[in-house]
């Protein structure tokens, strides 16, 4: 059993995880909200909702819409801001025995550097995910994650301001060549890659004759995007040596196995927890039982 368990231990930089199954940033909020439905301490970790330096109210109007096997969201990075996150949420998360990965928004440069400095004050934080890719926010997000030069400078900045902290760069699929962005992140000192964030999409309310979302565009997640995510992970994993966390549409144990075979070292489950909160733990159990599937 010891060997079996060791097999599924997962590391990014100096940060270790009891297993390579995490909750993706966003759907589970700060984790605690789901503590009644998911035994969070049994998971490798929880990537917390992306935070920005200041609190954000998020987008007005409708924020969710179902599509064929998919979910569009326009939450727009609503979050409590760094002060409340580090002051209230993080202590409660640690208290509950949850292993956090702190997701930070790469907004404009000033806020970003301040947010990094604020984060560096918290010795509890040993792994950070840089959300280079949120497609809902007008400034920031999209622009950063789609330009290798920007990815380079944002990751380098985080690298220098967060010495000793493991750094994951979370990529967007809304680019032509995710491999070059993964390589840029690795070159700039990232310890791992997370792929993918949501795919850009939209929907129209034909009765009301207007886009469903006030911001028009929204982010598509869920089983609909699994083929896209798998291909992105396959490509990213072949472009870098650092571990890749795979996310996007995982909704069964078998789906998770596909990501490991494609080259992911860990998986993140997002949308599926809405309808099947037991899934992340089932994936972890299957890995314990059968070991990590080898990369193909």
């Amino acid at each position, binding site marked *: 059993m010891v060997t079996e368990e060791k097999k599924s231990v997962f590391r990014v930089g100096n940060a270790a995880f009891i297993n390579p199954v995490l909750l993706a940033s966003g759907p589970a909020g700060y984790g605690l909200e789901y503590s009644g439905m998911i035994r969070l301490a049994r998971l490798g970790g929880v990537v917390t909702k992306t935070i920005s330096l200041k609190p954000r109210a998020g987008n007005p109007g409708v924020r969710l819409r179902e599509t064929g096997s998919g979910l569009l*969201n326009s*939450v727009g990075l609503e979050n409590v801001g760094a002060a409340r996150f580090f002051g209230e949420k993080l202590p409660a998360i640690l208290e509950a025995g949850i292993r956090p990965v702190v997701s930070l928004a790469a907004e404009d440069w000033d806020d970003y550097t301040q947010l990094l400095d604020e984060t560096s004050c918290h010795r509890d934080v040993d792994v950070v995910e840089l959300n280079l890719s949120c497609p809902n926010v007008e400034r920031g997000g999209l622009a950063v994650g789609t330009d290798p030069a920007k990815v380079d400078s944002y990751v380098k900045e985080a690298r220098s301001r967060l010495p000793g902290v493991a750094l994951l760069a979370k990529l967007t699929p809304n680019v032509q060549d995710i491999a070059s962005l993964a390589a840029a992140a690795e070159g700039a000192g990232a310890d791992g890659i997370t792929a993918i964030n949501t795919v850009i999409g939209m929907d129209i309310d034909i009765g009301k004759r207007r886009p469903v979302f006030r911001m028009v565009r929204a982010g598509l997640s869920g089983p609909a995007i699994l083929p896209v995510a798998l291909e992105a992970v396959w490509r990213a994993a072949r472009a870098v040596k650092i571990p890749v966390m795979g996310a996007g549409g995982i909704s069964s144990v078998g789906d998770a196995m596909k990501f490991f075979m494609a080259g992911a070292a860990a998986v993140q489950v997002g949308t599926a927890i809405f309808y099947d909160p*037991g899934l992340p733990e089932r994936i972890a159990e299957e890995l314990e039982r059968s070991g990590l599937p080898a990369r193909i």
Partner: protein
Amino acid sequence: MKGNTKRSYKARVISSERISPSCGVVVFERPEGFPDALPGQFVSVRVSDSTVPLLRRPYSIMDLTGLELALLVKVAGRGSAMLASAGPGEVMDLAGPLGGASFDDPGGDDAVLVAGGTGLAPMIFSARTWKRRGSRGRLYLVHGAASRDESPDSFFEADFDKVFRATMDGSAGFSGDVVALLAKLLDEGRISAPLLYSCGPAGMVRALVERTGDRFKSHHTSLEAVMACGVGACRGCTVPLREGGRIVFKAVCDDGTVFRASDIAWEEWW
């Protein structure tokens, strides 16, 4: 951080009955360990193991006894059709009780309960809960629906002191919308109560606020919104409230479903 008792349960359907062409009552065995619930709380049901529909569907608790959990289900699309047609013995995954704010007991006061369509469910649960607790104020139900087809037979008549009914097409009760009916009842002095409770489409609740807002001491409303997590995590079901001049977004699933109607920033909400 408050403790979190929101769990997911396997629940067995005991019975499923059509009570009107478009509505049914689905009764589940109360799952072991399922906590007591408050009026306005809801459950979220996984209606299929397919990814179409993808999300759970939220349903107000219509009744919860020691043995049973009852839902009132209107067929609105694919998901509700699946729930309404679940046969006895079928086991479904159901999370709850969800909702962080519920309808307060009117104490001894009289109350008007306005329900649009299946907004009826939490009203029935309110009336039954309050009566069980021995509440002695009079409870007036004013129920509005599109037509007789959407206005289920009044198996709930006994739960209220008086039931008034409006249908848009006039096929049952008052002909017109439920807000017009309430205004008429108030004008004619046939109803008078300090407290207003409501549940129904946003348009109905907004009209209630605008047309009868000043005639009640308080108006609490249970809102609906498209939901994903149901536990306040995903921030997908927010409603804009006015709080000291600012707009803040609250989660219908967790900060609600019950809010003070006067706090809602309607013009920000679509």
